[in-house]
């Protein structure tokens, strides 16, 4: 079932309690409620404050390097032999991924609220690097929580964060990945709630985080919309973005939600294959539950314990997803699909060899699906892939998979 969304309906979401239909909300322990309610109120004020918005726009232009190009992947399109494939180049953002759009927004928010200590969780390390970067830029103390397994997998990003002056806390609990990093960041926040601002990196978490991350990331879709009209004279026929927590996807999709002709595809990590159970695809294979402050699709066992996830890409290795995606799935506005580790690697090699653009392994999932999709479409149609990040951070993983020692 698909619903026609109007601007009016969209502006009413999330509702006053942070709900997107049955999803979202604020499921946290009492100690955090006051801070979340204050953040919600202050953000509502600053969202309308011309000074705050002007400062944010200036940072996006001069520090992040926006607008990022919308690039026609001519060779890839020709080889694929279907729709024209265009790339939204978020990999060209400062720090090499879309994450910085959000961290600069939230760090400005922290500064306006007078909070000097920043905490963040990270999976692949991209959000950690983007947070450490803006903290250096604004002179804020920075603590990044990262699962011990991810610290191993993404040693380059760990070193980058340290160079930027951040303290990296290797989280030993649970599965030692992103979800456990988020648990420990929440624990730190409860203990230091007076002076600390928690910069959440994805569109999940308790209200108002899914709202503010979506607002900060929506610059991706707004630019894409304008650029597509300029360069192709029409809106794209399809948008494709990878979905872990879903921040780059929501940033791309949101400004197009009322454009019924634009098909939206969120690509989850299929890991070793959905039927093996070793994946990170809650929208494709999970069910609704409550984790990390919001109700959303989750990977869990029959007793409600959160399941271990698997993906070749650390940034997608998360058992939940932003609540707005859960809502978009249930109302049928967006399609959620998955590609396996192997298919993602194929997408990584293809974009690297054919266009000279090395995508992050997260992004490679979107690339792999978009190539399949474009092949089924007509030559006068257009597909935009959100190239959410660059692949340099994944060189070690790729080399290891190919049996090469660097």
């Amino acid at each position, binding site marked *: 079932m698909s619903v026609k969304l109007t601007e009016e309906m969209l502006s009413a979401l999330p509702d006053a309690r942070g709900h997107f239909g049955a999803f979202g909300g604020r499921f946290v322990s009492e100690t955090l409620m006051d801070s979340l309610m204050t953040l919600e109120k202050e953000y509502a004020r600053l969202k309308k404050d011309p000074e705050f918005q002007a400062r944010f726009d200036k940072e996006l232009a001069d520090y992040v390097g926006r607008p990022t190009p919308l690039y026609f992947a001519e060779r890839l399109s020709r080889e694929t032999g279907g729709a024209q494939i265009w790339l939204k180049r978020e990999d060209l953002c400062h720090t090499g991924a879309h994450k910085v759009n959000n961290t600069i927004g939230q760090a400005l928010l922290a500064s306006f609220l007078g909070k000097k200590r920043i905490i963040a969780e990270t999976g692949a390390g991209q959000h950690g690097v983007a947070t450490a970067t803006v903290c250096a830029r604004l002179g804020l103390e920075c603590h990044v929580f990262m699962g011990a397994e991810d610290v191993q997998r993404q040693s380059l990003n760990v070193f980058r964060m340290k160079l930027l002056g951040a303290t990296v806390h290797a989280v030993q609990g649970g599965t030692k990945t992103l979800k456990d990093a988020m648990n420990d960041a929440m624990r730190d926040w409860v203990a230091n709630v007076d002076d600390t601002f928690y910069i959440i990196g994805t569109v999940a978490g308790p209200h108002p985080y899914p709202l503010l991350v979506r607002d900060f990331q929506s610059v991706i879709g707004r630019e894409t919309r304008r650029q597509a009209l300029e360069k192709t004279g029409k809106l794209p026929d399809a948008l494709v973005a990878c979905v872990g927590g879903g921040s780059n996807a929501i940033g791309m999709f949101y400004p197009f939600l009322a454009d019924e002709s634009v098909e939206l595809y969120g690509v989850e990590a299929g890991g070793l294959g959905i039927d093996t159970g070793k994946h990170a695809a809650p929208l494709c294979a999970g069910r609704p539950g409550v984790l990390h402050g919001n109700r959303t699709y989750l990977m869990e066992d029959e007793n409600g314990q*959160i399941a271990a996830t698997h993906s070749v890409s650390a940034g997608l290795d998360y058992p939940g997803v932003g609540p707005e995606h859960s809502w978009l799935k249930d109302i049928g506005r967006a399609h959620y699909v998955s590609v396996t580790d192997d298919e993602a690697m194929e997408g990584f090699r293809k974009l690297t060899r054919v266009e000279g653009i090395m995508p992050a392994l997260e992004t490679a999932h979107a690339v792999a699906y978009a190539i399949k999709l474009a092949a089924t479409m007509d030559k006068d149609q257009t597909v935009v892939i959100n190239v959410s990040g660059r692949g340099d951070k994944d060189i070690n993983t790729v080399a290891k998979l190919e049996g090469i020692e660097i």
Partner: protein
Amino acid sequence: MSRIEGALKALKGQGRKALIPYITAGDPHPDVTVDLMHTLVEAGADIIELGVPFSDPMADGPVIQLACERALVHGTSLRQVIGMVKEFRKSDDNTPVVLMGYLNPMEAMGYERFADAAKDAGVDGILTVDLPPEEADEVAPLFTERDLDAIFLLSPTTTDDRIRAISQHSSGYVYYVSIKGVTGSASINVDEVAAKVGHIHELTALPVGVGFGIRDAETAAAVGRVSDGVIVGSVLVDTIARNQADTDQLKRALTDLLHPMREALDSLAS
């Protein structure tokens, strides 16, 4: 009158304070939990808070996180925890039992099925750490209809308006989290707790239990002096961790820990 309300009224009539120990069900093994619950009662417990293990206990420190992991290794499920209470009730019909945990295992079981099973087993109250009253519209009425007490948390950051609103949603008692932090973390500031609990007493008629940071007879007495009951968690769970290999020794260790707290609380009796 619920079993919790009855127990707290009786204590109040005697001028005594409630001793409320917490252990995680299934830790160190599901087979010994019921036995440990009886041990807690013999050592002086008035109410038992029985933790439902969860894979991602965000509000807990390392001690209770590890207890959850030990319980989950043996596959301890919410259904099994309810079964433990049913077993406990066969030989103890007096001591109130509160299930304390996170929302997702209840959601996975189905709220109505959970409420029915809990009531049937003899559970008395439900404390869901990550469920503020704002999100409890669907769940709380299912508890109320079955005379299960819904116990909510108050914290040092809770405003007066919220204290009033939360108290209205609560029954049995309210649980005041004495510190900003996770379980088992910082040490308690008794003067601050006294001031806040005194203030809470002005805003609600419900009994106030205080938890987080109570680790010995001295802190129990200090907090008992200003509240209606003390909740003791991490120090017990840590004792379980250190004595998990030998159940008899573990029971002695738990008794040795609780006894002095019981005596210290009773020495306050007016």
